[in-house]
């Protein structure tokens, strides 16, 4: 069971969290203005990196907040967790 640092509550057991998929996938401001391909990208295309991955978590059985985390998918080491709206701390690709 992972130990996850909630930016609001601190270190908590993984059981209290729910994974929320890739982070930094913003909903288009005006969906009706997107092309069919842009919309399909937004809906369905996600990265699956070996290594650092920015992902969303929700402390669902704790403070209830969504937040983002930078996790190494090969080691499960969390490099950082940070609040929604904050930039990816390693400056890595944010779609």
């Amino acid at each position: 069971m992972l130990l996850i640092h909630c930016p609001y509550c601190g270190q908590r057991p993984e059981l209290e969290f729910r994974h929320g998929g890739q982070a930094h996938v913003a909903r288009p401001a005006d969906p009706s203005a997107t092309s069919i391909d842009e919309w399909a990208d937004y809906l369905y295309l996600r990265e699956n990196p070996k290594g650092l991955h920015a992902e969303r978590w929700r402390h669902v059985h704790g403070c209830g907040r969504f937040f983002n985390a930078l996790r190494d998918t090969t080691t499960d080491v969390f490099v950082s967790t940070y609040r929604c709206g904050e930039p990816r701390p390693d400056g890595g690709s944010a779609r």
Partner: protein
Amino acid sequence: MINLASAGLVAAPESRRWVLRGHAVAMAAAGAAFGSPLPTRAGEVAQAASSIADTARAALWLGPDEVWFITPVEDGAALEGALRTALAAVPHALVDISHRQVGLLLQGTDPAWLLNAVCPLDLSLAAFPVNCCTRTLFNKAEIVLWRTGPAAFRLETGRSFSGYVVGLLAEIAREQAA
């Protein structure tokens, strides 16, 4: 049948509860009505005198924009009235959850031991001191845990989960007896 009292488990006195959600301005306004600044640090509990002698109201930090009020039922109208008045002009949500929850008091010899059978948090006094609170899990039930004393907890759970929580506590208490 297990004697729950021997495991230190009793039902909390009838209480009223509200969830307050809002920004700092709402929290500040509510604090004045509550009688003490509302908690701002994770897991903090603030208490203030209730309108009924020798009883206290509590405000539990459960999220950065979420505070729970718990007070004896006799203080309910006074507290709610004060809060609604103070918050009238401030964007907020104050929702009655008095009946949503069931409160249990654990005050046996080692309630942390009982809880840690299935609660994944570190409940040592150093890690979870008196007047610390949090939402967490009790095996398959979500609970709110508030340490009211070195060997005393208040546990809040959803009404329909209370049978499960009590049954599981009783099952765990049998180990202490064994």
